[in-house]
């Protein structure tokens, strides 16, 4: 019974001064939530980073920023240094010491990153489509679970790649992609991208194209009109390119076959390659191959890179965490004294209760209940902050990749 009355009195008092109650709960909740959030964010980021770094024992890329290579190849979140070509893959696959899976970035579709790779990537990662099937032809794509949800894509949906890309200021041509499958959720960066075949990627980047097929005179389908692009004047296009306005779609076998790449495929660029050595010995030998001073490429162990980055992050975070914890304690003290003051301001009310026959214990219970409700509200807020924090993990990793 006393509990019921305590709750009633406490609730009414808190609601009566709701602005003050809310302010106190908010300040306390956020200050308690920040250290919690920091630790959970770091735990999640560390997990994400480590898990992702274990995707490939080695990463091959052009010499330059190691971080750009790791974050580009593994998180599709930055652009690896330029200079890797298909030919370079032979250097690691030579003697069958390793398998290399190429990665090509630099395009997006409806703001989702488009990643060009081969089907080996999915075999290696053991990712299968949840619905539909893997891409087989140029112009086909499979989409990560989050992208499918965000863009409300189903298999057989079509979408255009974006005409502009931050990584390629000259512009990329919009190409219509046909969704052939939706990948099952992996809880990794794979969920947030669209995968296409390497050749599709080169086409998007303007490195491959197709010609009008004389057997199929130009039709007037507007869908097909945009298959490759509307702007023939772009400098990036080879002079052989003729804007195709055929009534056929990109996904048919005949048009796929008509795609071709000028020059040797070996010269076509890549952003990175995931390298899987046959054994530990091969790994050591491979690493040795890329240590020459004038070596234009780098072969790195993402695992080591990740632990270096995490060490640095945790070093900073420990300091931040200590500061946040100290601040939270100070704030808790301030909130407690603000609450005590608000109770003191109600001394008349509490004295009245005693005069009307309430025991000291009952009045104390009323105040304790009020403090408890306020604390619970604060903790609830802190938990919200805490639970939302891991969502910022990709953001943190991106920030780290850019710093």
């Amino acid at each position: 019974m006393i509990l019921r009355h305590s709750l009633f009195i406490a609730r009414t008092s808190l609601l009566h001064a709701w602005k003050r109650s809310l302010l106190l709960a908010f300040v306390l909740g956020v200050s308690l939530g920040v250290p919690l959030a920091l630790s959970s964010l770091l735990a999640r980021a560390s997990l994400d980073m480590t898990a992702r770094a274990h995707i490939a024992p080695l990463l091959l890329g052009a010499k330059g920023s190691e971080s750009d290579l790791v974050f580009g190849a593994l998180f599709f979140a930055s652009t690896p240094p330029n200079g890797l070509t298909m030919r370079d893959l032979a250097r690691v696959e030579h003697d069958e010491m390793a398998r290399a899976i190429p990665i090509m970035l630099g395009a997006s579709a409806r703001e989702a990153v488009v990643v060009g790779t081969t089907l080996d990537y999915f075999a290696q990662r053991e990712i299968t489509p949840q619905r539909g099937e893997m891409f087989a032809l140029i112009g086909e794509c499979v989409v990560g679970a989050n992208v499918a949800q965000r863009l409300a894509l189903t298999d057989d949906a079509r979408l255009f790649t974006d005409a502009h890309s931050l990584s390629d200021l000259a512009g990329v041509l919009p190409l219509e992609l046909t969704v052939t499958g939706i990948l099952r959720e992996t809880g990794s960066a794979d969920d947030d991208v669209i995968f296409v075949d390497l050749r599709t990627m080169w086409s998007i980047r303007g490195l491959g194209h197709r010609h009008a097929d004389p057997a199929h005179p130009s039709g007037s389908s507007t869908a097909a009109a945009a298959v490759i692009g509307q702007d023939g004047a772009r400098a990036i296009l080879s002079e052989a390119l003729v804007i195709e306005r055929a009534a056929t779609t990109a996904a048919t076998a005949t048009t796929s076959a008509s795609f071709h790449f000028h020059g040797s495929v070996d010269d076509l660029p890549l952003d990175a390659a995931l390298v899987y050595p046959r054994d530990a010995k091969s790994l050591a030998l491979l690493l040795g191959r890329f240590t020459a001073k004038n070596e234009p490429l780098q072969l790195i162990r993402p695992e080591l890179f990740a632990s270096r980055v995490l060490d640095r992050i945790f070093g900073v975070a420990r300091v931040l965490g200590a500061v946040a914890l100290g601040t939270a304690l100070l704030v808790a003290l301030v909130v407690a004294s603000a609450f005590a003051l608000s109770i003191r301001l109600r001394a008349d009310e509490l004295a009245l209760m005693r005069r009307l026959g309430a025991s000291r214990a009952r009045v104390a219970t009323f105040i304790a209940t009020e403090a408890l409700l306020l604390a619970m509200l604060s903790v609830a807020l802190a938990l919200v902050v805490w639970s939302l924090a891991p969502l910022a993990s990709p953001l943190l990793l991106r920030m780290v990749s850019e710093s």
Partner: protein
Amino acid sequence: MRTHSDARSSLDDESCKSYAQSTRHKRYSARVLGIAQDSSPLVATPLLVTSELEFRRASGFELRVRPIVLHGGESLAVRGASGSGKSTLLSLLCGELLPQRGSIQASGVMISTATDTARRKHRATGCGQVFQTFELVDALDVLDNVLLPFRLHASLVLNDAARARALELLERVGLRGMERRSILTMSHGERQRVAIARALVTKPSLVLADEPTGSLDTPRKRAIAELLLRETQAAGAALIIATHDQSIVPLFGSVLTIGELE
């Protein structure tokens, strides 16, 4: 347990007479008589009996009060200058303070020697209190202010009967329909009506009012004093009011002037 007074007691007659002085309140006296007659027991037991009381503070303050005997429906005005000890007397009667000498018996309970727990129970259930500054809780609405005593002591149970009684009292003090109003939106007169309803909601045998008209403007003073008298009498309780306001003193059945013994 409450005992109703004998309507024919001299004190009651006096109080009726003072009522009758005001033509506006003739109808009240009839009602008071009616109720008293309805519920008058064969033998009237006083609700409050005190012997000569003596109370001293370390500061040198000294209060001496002649014996008081009050039956249900009777009223007593305690007069005295500021600082003469009117409030102290009320604190003694509700068991907040203990006299150094003398005894206080309320509804058969010897308050002056009772344990703290027993005296708290007396304050919660045996005596209703009305204050000069109303002493209402801002956070609670009108009805919850009236029902507050039920949340303060374990022997009072907040049930439907209590709510019905509170609503009935609010209607009697003229605040029907204002149950859910905030105290802060009410006038002083209205607030004191809420306080009167709160003092009576536990059906106390004794109502102690400390300068209940002190914060009110003159036209309201008399109205509140009359309301207090009317409702305590209707409830069959004894009323003691501490006041330095001469204009309302004649309304009460008997008068005790503090300091006159010295």
